[in-house]
Structure formats: structure tokens, C-alpha cells
């Protein structure tokens, strides 16, 4: 029997052992993250069919909950863990060749720590432990944003750090208040007792925790760090931040509101925030001339759409939201990875310098185009079923309000289409300076190719994913099932 705790222990151990391997050989270092994440991917795929039947509980220290720190490997946790290790693996293969300057050992250590933190957040069943893993994720991402060490990177890293640190302090106050109220830190135990106190006294911790985790999830109005941080980090890190870090932040917000607090009365508020985030992100993205800033703003928009879909809080809505989350992770990773070498080739992040890139780097340009089309939601790519499910969920509500809201969401998609098609047009149909045809190196093309294949396969057979997501959605919506599975 494979223990889910290996998903956290192995990358954490390897992250700290990595400098020792560096003593043996400098070349060995960059293959360690690949190994660790390959291991994680295999373990989470082995666990996946098993947790669909019954969530696996791990009690640390041998005490039974609520007295121990526990891991809950339910469908949501393992699906997220698999997604994190898949994208992490592909990006670590990409980094083998992409990261050439600076303290490379430290890059790989921080990279593994970031993914350990993300995996820990999605698996843990203890609210303080959630905070600790969240901090591991945040601190390593602050450091990774500053990795290039140039002016923009340092400036955006310090901005990100200040906002992130205030956010996590607020979340910690929320955890403290919850412990003061209930005398327990186990999420299932808190969830079981939440109705025993007056609603007003749980409102403050709820608000603090949504704000605290919302900073990392980049929910409007807490998103001002994101475009800076995502555009000045190395492209491989932008892919991870956009594809994983903000999704994990969103997971924390959703887990806290859905499972721990069961706060169905604020879902409507979050739905509005989601739509607002979507529209603001897409409109800002439209006016950008820097490719990475454009992609970063587009991430804000997508997070808004996912938040909107999740907080409809019907099985359709949550399934649609999770589907959109997966397709966004794959597409955004693909976009950042392919844009990374296009920027390298063009020597600038300005979109207008990408003229004629379709002839200079045909495969990379094709990858970028597929990512863009998938994000906009064109069939047969993975974005289409996601958006389709969300529209179906919103229309199934059969209220005028939701019809108007989904109309606004589709307006956001139209804006999204406009700026992505503009880039694609520049890449293929504008004559640029003649240049030699030279592709990205093989270590970059392999992950790009795998992501392209996944996007197309999921787009053609969405049933592969939706069956998994249905059980994940029922875990999120059925909080009593969650409480019972932990406390027995």
C-alpha cells in the first residue's frame, strides 16, 4: 500500500538533500526535481483509483483525529496532487535547459519546495498545517520571482512579499480565532462544530481567511502583485505560478468556505467577486503590449471564471470550475513555456517583435496557438468543455441574475479571444525580419509537445476527466461526508 505522505516527504527530503548531490556533481542537480516529481506523479496515479472509492486517511504520530495532524487524500486532494506533479514534472524537464544563469542549485531547491508546499496544502486535513504548507509555497515563490536578480524582478518580488506576508498574517489570525472558539485545529472537527456558535463569531475568522488566502489566489482587489511577479519571473516559474500557485490559493479559499465553514450565504458574494475579477483581468490584459504581462492578466481573468463557476455550488458548477481549472493549468503552462523561448529568440517581451515567428519557430508557435485557442475555449481543445460546463451550470440555475452573470463571463471570453487572436495574427501573418529557422531545444520541446497532446486529448474526450471531477465535486459539496470520513 502506497502511503500518501510520500507525496510530501519525498520532494521535501530531496529538496534539502539536493545541495549534497551538488557536491557530487554539478550536472546531477537539475535532474533531481525531475526524479522527485516523476515519483510523485506515479504515486498519485496509483492512489487515484483507490481514493475514488474511499478517501485515504493518514494520521501522523499514531493518534486518531482530532488529536493528530492528519492528511486527507480524497478525490480533490489526489487530483490536485496529480495535476501539480504533472505540470511540475514537465516544467522541471523544461528548466533543465532553460535555467542557465544564476545560482542554479538554489533554483532547483526552491522549485521543489514550492511544489512540496502546494502538494501539502491540497492534502492536509489540519488548518494550521494548511497555513504552514501555504507559507512554504509562498516563501519559495517570493524567492523564485527574485531569481533573475534584475531591476523588475527585485521590485516585483518585494511587492509580492509584502502583500503575501500581510495576507498570511491575516490568515493566521483567522486560524487563531478558530482555535480560540473550538479548541481544535482539525478541519473536519471544526466543520462539525461550526454551527454550535453564533454566526457572527465565525464571520470574522472566515473574512480573515478568505482575505489571507485570497491574496495568493489573486482574487480582485487583492491581485495587484500578480502581473508584476508573473511577468518578471523566469518563464518556467511564471508557468508554475500561473498554473499551480494561484490555483492552490483558490483551493485554500474554496476548502475553507465550502468544507470548514459551510458558508453558503457568502457564495453569492464570491460569485460577484469572481465575475469582477474576470472582467478586470481580461480588460487589463487587452491593453497590454508585453506578452508575459498579458498572460498574467489573463490568469487573473481565468481565476475569476473558476471562482465564479465553483461558487455556483451545484454539482454542474463545481465540476465545470474544476474542469476549467485543469484546462487553465495545462494551457497557461503551455503558453508560458512556449512564450519563454519566443522571448529568448525575439530578445524582447514586446508582442510586436514576434512578427514572423511562425516561420522562425513553427513548432513553438503552433504550441502557443494551441494554448491560446484552448484558453479562449475553441473546440476541439480542453478549454471548450470547461467553458461549456460552466455555461450549462449557470443556465441550469434558471434565474435572471445568473443569466446576466454568464453573459458578462462570455463577454470576458470575447475580450480574451480578441487579444489572443491579435498575438496569433502577429505571429503568423505579419512579415518579420528574415531569420534562420531554429526551434527551441529538445528539453523544451518535449514538455511543450506533451502539454499540447494532453490539451487536445482532453478536449476530444472530456469524459476522461469529468468522471474524476464528479467525485471531486461531490467531496467539496458534501461536507458531512467529509466530516464523517475523517472522524469516523
Amino acid at each position, binding site marked *: 500500500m502506497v502511503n500518501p505522505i510520500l507525496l510530501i516527504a519525498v520532494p521535501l527530503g530531496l529538496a534539502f538533500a539536493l545541495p549534497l548531490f551538488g557536491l557530487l556533481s554539478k550536472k546531477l542537480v537539475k535532474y533531481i526535481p525531475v526524479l522527485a516529481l516523476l515519483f510523485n506523479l506515479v504515486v498519485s496515479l496509483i492512489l487515484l483509483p483507490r481514493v475514488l472509492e474511499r478517501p485515504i486517511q493518514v494520521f501522523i504520530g499514531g493518534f486518531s483525529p482530532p488529536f493528530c495532524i492528519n492528511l486527507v487524500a480524497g478525490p480533490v486532494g489526489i487530483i490536485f496532487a496529480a495535476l501539480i506533479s504533472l505540470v511540475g514534472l514537465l516544467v522541471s524537464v523544461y528548466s533543465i535547459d532553460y535555467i542557465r544563469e544564476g545560482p542554479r542549485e538554489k533554483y532547483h531547491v526552491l522549485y521543489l519546495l514550492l511544489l512540496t508546499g502546494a502538494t501539502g496544502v491540497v492534502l492536509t486535513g489540519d488548518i*494550521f498545517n494548511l497555513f*504552514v504548507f501555504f*507559507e512554504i509555497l509562498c*516563501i519559495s515563490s*517570493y*524567492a523564485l520571482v*527574485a531569481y533573475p*536578480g*534584475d*531591476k*523588475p524582478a*527585485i*521590485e*516585483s*518580488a*518585494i*511587492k509580492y*512579499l*509584502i502583500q503575501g*506576508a*500581510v495576507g*498570511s*498574517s491575516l490568515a*493566521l*489570525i483567522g*486560524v*487563531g480565532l478558530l*482555535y*480560540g472558539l473550538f479548541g481544535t*485545529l482539525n478541519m473536519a472537527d471544526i466543520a462539525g462544530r461550526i454551527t454550535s456558535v453564533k454566526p457572527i463569531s465565525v464571520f470574522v475568522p472566515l473574512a480573515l481567511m478568505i482575505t489571507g488566502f485570497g491574496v495568493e489566489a489573486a482574487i480582485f482587489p487583492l491581485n495587484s502583485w500578480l*502581473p*508584476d511577479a508573473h*511577468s*518578471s519571473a523566469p518563464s518556467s516559474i511564471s508557468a508554475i505560478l500561473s498554473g499551480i500557485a494561484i490555483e492552490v490559493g483558490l483551493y485554500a479559499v474554496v476548502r475553507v468556505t465550502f468544507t470548514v465553514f459551510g458558508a453558503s450565504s457568502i457564495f453569492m458574494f464570491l460569485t460577484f467577486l469572481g465575475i469582477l475579477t474576470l472582467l478586470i483581468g481580461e480588460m*487589463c490584459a487587452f491593453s497590454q503590449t508585453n506578452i508575459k504581462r498579458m498572460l498574467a492578466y489573463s490568469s487573473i481573468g481565468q481565476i475569476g471564471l473558476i471562482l465564479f463557476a465553483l461558487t455556483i455550488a451545484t454539482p454542474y458548477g463545481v465540476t465545470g470550475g474544476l474542469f476549467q481549472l485543469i484546462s487553465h493549468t495545462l494551457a497557461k503552462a503551455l503558453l508560458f513555456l512556449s512564450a519563454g523561448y519566443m522571448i529568448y529568440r525575439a530578445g524582447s517581451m514586446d508582442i510586436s517583435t514576434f512578427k514572423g515567428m511562425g516561420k522562425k519557430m513553427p513548432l513553438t508557435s503552433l504550441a502557443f496557438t494551441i494554448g491560446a485557442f484552448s484558453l479562449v475555449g475553441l473546440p476541439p481543445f480542453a478549454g471548450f468543455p470547461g467553458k461549456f460546463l460552466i455555461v450549462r451550470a449557470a443556465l441550469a440555475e434558471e434565474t435572471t441574475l445568473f443569466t446576466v452573470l454568464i453573459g458578462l463571463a462570455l463577454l470576458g471570453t470575447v475580450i480574451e479571444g480578441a487579444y489572443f487572436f491579435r498575438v496569433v495574427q502577429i505571429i503568423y501573418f505579419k512579415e518579420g525580419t528574415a531569420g534562420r529557422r531554429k526551434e527551441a531545444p529538445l528539453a523544451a520541446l518535449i514538455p511543450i509537445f506533451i502539454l499540447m497532446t494532453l490539451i487536445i486529448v482532453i478536449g476530444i474526450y472530456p469524459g476522461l476527466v469529468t468522471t474524476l471531477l464528479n467525485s471531486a465535486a461531490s467531496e467539496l459539496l458534501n461536507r458531512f461526508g467529509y466530516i464523517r470520513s475523517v472522524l469516523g
Partner: protein
Amino acid sequence: MSFLHNYIYYFGAFGLIFIGLYIILVKRNLIKIIIGLSILETGVNLFLVSIGYISSGTAPIFSRPEVEAARMVDPVPQALVLTAIVIGVAVLALALSLTIRVYRHFGTLNLRKIKEQRW
């Protein structure tokens, strides 16, 4: 008066938290903002400790038979605070080292003058 006596730690903790937030929001010097961050974290830690505190309580170690469990302080918040302090140290160290780099690049610590990245 007894109200103040019972809740004095909470007043102190939230006082520190609000002072920290005020400094972060108002000051322009990066070092001062980091000091504000440190005060904020101290406030949060004080708050966590005071949740489990019992007036004239003792450490939760069952070594002497005459000390009852009811007179022991709650050890869980203290464990939380230890963790939170370690995390705080990491954040502050990273913030200060980034500040050194900011000064090297921009020649100033005034955040109003550092604005190359904008919407």
C-alpha cells in the same frame, strides 16, 4: 476594570496588529514597512499565545503530582507560535535581503520613487 484585566493580552495583541498594519499602509520607506511587518507578526504571535494562557498557570509537564491539569496552560498555541516565529524569521530575512538588492538597483528605499512596474 476586571474586563480590562481579563482581556489585556488581547488588547495588546490587536493593538500591535493594528500598529503594524498602519505602518505598512502609511510609511514609504521599505525598512519601515518591514519593521511594520515584524510588529504585525509579533502581534499575531502574542494573540496566539494568549489564547491558551491561564493566569498564573504552569507548564504542561506531568512531573509533580500536586499540579493539576486545570492549572496548566494550553501547549498547542505555544507550538503554533514557535512555528509562526520560524516562518516570520524566514519572511523577514528574505525581505531584508531583497531590500539590499532594491537599494543596489534603485539607490533609494522610498517606494514612491520605485515604480517601474505598473498596470
